[in-house]
């Protein structure tokens, strides 16, 4: 299993290289660069020259590409031009916030989705099944950013019970007891994680329902039922484990989807995470910051798929990584 993990990570290296190269030359081809914001039409040419040289932008693109790759190999992401501090620090500030949000969403998505799917499959063709199917299709087809706005409207304005922006209460947080502070943080997580996770939860429920229905038709389930086992034991103990396999496959594919959603949800809820950072970096054409963001994103996807692969082995003992 350990060698398998190493092999998978080694296979990710060409992928990382491809992504970084693609994005670097995409930025190079685009008009303007990150130093544009320092200039006005009246800036004297020698000042322009000095600023461009300071950031190393006077060298040809291929040279800068080489320098960047060498630095990256040494673990140096460079300095952000728009924020004028090390990219590593900026990313380190934003990444945990996004991870908290996405991991919480991921847990909620899969719990809710799997439970709903089991309920639907166990009562196939009932009114409950039909109602939940329509409901999950409704949420599956919903734009996440629109749901975020509606949640803000409902729970922030019409029935103001939950905070709708930021990670902590900007005024009161410092005056709270530690337990109140924890509650404050949790309350700020509720709406963003719902907005982020609802459509994925709906899709998990759809997969879970059909996957469980397929397993329930098999002979060993009929045997278990014939033994006189109660239905909940048959479904939860015998059928569930096999039905979970396809869910784990899509678990790995949920991460990029969550990051896409985070771009919108984080800007709506003023959540200082990677999604907002990427938007800012792209709009300011800050090459080192954009490269670092895409590096992290690709790593998230690779690790997500790897975790899904390893979980597969936990659920399905037939699979061995040799």
């Amino acid at each position, binding site marked *: 299993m350990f060698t398998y993990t190493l092999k998978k990570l080694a296979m990710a290296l060409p*992928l990382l290289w491809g992504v970084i190269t693609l994005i670097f030359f*995409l930025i190079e081809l685009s008009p303007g660069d990150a130093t544009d914001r320092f200039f006005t039409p009246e800036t004297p040419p020698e000042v322009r020259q000095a600023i461009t040289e300071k950031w190393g932008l006077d060298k040809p693109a291929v040279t800068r590409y080489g320098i960047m790759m060498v630095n990256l190999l040494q673990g140096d992401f460079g300095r952000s031009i728009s924020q004028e501090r090390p990219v590593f620090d900026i990313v380190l500030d934003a990444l945990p916030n996004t991870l908290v949000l996405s991991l919480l969403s991921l847990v909620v998505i899969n719990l809710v989705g799997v439970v709903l799917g089991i309920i639907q499959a166990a009562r196939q063709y009932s009114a409950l099944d039909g109602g939940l199917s329509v409901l999950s299709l*409704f949420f599956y*087809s919903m734009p996440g950013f629109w749901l975020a706005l509606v949640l803000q409207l409902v729970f922030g304005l019409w029935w103001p019970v939950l905070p709708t922006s930021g990670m902590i209460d900007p005024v009161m947080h410092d005056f709270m007891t530690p337990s109140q502070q924890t509650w404050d943080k949790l309350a700020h997580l509720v709406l963003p994680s719902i907005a982020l996770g609802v459509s994925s939860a709906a899709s998990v429920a759809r997969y879970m329902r059909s996957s469980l229905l397929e397993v329930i038709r098999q002979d060993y389930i009929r045997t278990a039922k014939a033994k006189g086992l109660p239905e909940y034991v048959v479904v939860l103990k015998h059928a569930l484990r096999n039905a979970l396999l396809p869910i784990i496959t899509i678990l790995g594919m949920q991460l*990029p989807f969550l990051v896409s959603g985070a*771009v919108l949800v984080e800007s709506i809820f003023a959540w200082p995470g990677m999604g907002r950072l990427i938007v800012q970096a792209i709009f300011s054409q800050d090459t080192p910051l954009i490269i670092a963001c895409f590096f992290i994103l690709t790593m998230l996807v690779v690790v997500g798929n790897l975790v899904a692969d390893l979980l597969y082995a936990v659920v399905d003992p037939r699979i061995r990584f040799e």
Partner: protein
Amino acid sequence: MGAPVTPQDHKPSPLGYVPGLGHLLRGDWPNAIGLSVQLLILTWAAVAGFPRLGGLLFPEQGGSGLHPWIALLSWVGVVGLVGYTTWAGQQPPPPKDSVRSPTAELIKQFQRNRAGVFGLHIVSWMIVLALLTPLVAPFDPDALDVGGKSLPPQPGYWMGTDDFGRDLLSRSLYGARISLSIGFIAVGLSATLGALIGAVAGYFGGWVDRLSMWLVDLLLALPRLVLLLAIVGLFRSAGAQSLFLIVVILGLTGWMGVSRIVRAQVLTLKEQDFVQACRAMGIPDSRIILGHILPNAMAPVIVNASLAIGGTILTEASLSFLGLGVPPPTATWGSIINDGREFMRTAPWITIGPGLLIVLAVMSFNLLGDGLRDALDPKLRGRA
């Protein structure tokens, strides 16, 4: 009693395939509601749109370019369809035991799936309304202050007006044209590209296969919205924000899933005898791929495309919402939501209405796609 109808005597009429027509002819009202509503909308569009045709076709009365002609053609089509259906209502229904072609069998299978038929109904209403928009929209989408600013939904302004006093129903109808066209064209582009790349990769194998699948992995590792954001965001000052380029970029970033599916199909197809026979006869590879292999791999592509239209509409709305979609003042569903964001407190209907339209459109395309998949592939029946 006349002579019994044998299968050979009967030529199936294309009308037999119109969902709901059989129910309508037999007077089975509960099941004919879908078609009846559709006919009512069409009749209303034909009647209400007629007086506007004059104004649209003569430039001195306002209106020029291609739109009036599209509207005229759609109007003629609508009048024709209503007339034809009325005429067909007087014809005897086709006998039940006629032999069906594979297409007819497919349509029959599809009609069994009520959810899929419902999706098809909604999709076709939306397309008809989008085509007829210049005739049926109550106001000019960009006209300011048509009756008051920030009016809540009420008779005459069914979706309300925005902060500039523009009528939101008219804007949403014009927005539907943009959003639906982007969905259809971008998915058409990506499905074609994906099918070609997948077929070439699967057929030739070797380094072509490895290279293209590496590219697929690479593009799939990047979340699509983030990649789009990077492309449109970086090139926005170079004019990337035009309708044409948005469609092209959406098409170029959506082909990976299709190419994987087609490649897997081609890998099994190319080992089959008919392909070996083609090779033995010396038919060039390009003709084997385009003429013999791809037609056999099309079913999953069609299913994937109808599901992808919904996803593309969502992606386009997200881009518009970030201010990176089709440039203003052109209304799309996403940009109307974005416009309404500042006025969530005072005028939430600006945001809520178009959002519900997006949900309805995406949901219908998903239902249609699920129905098509069930009809096309018996093995997949019942899966999510």
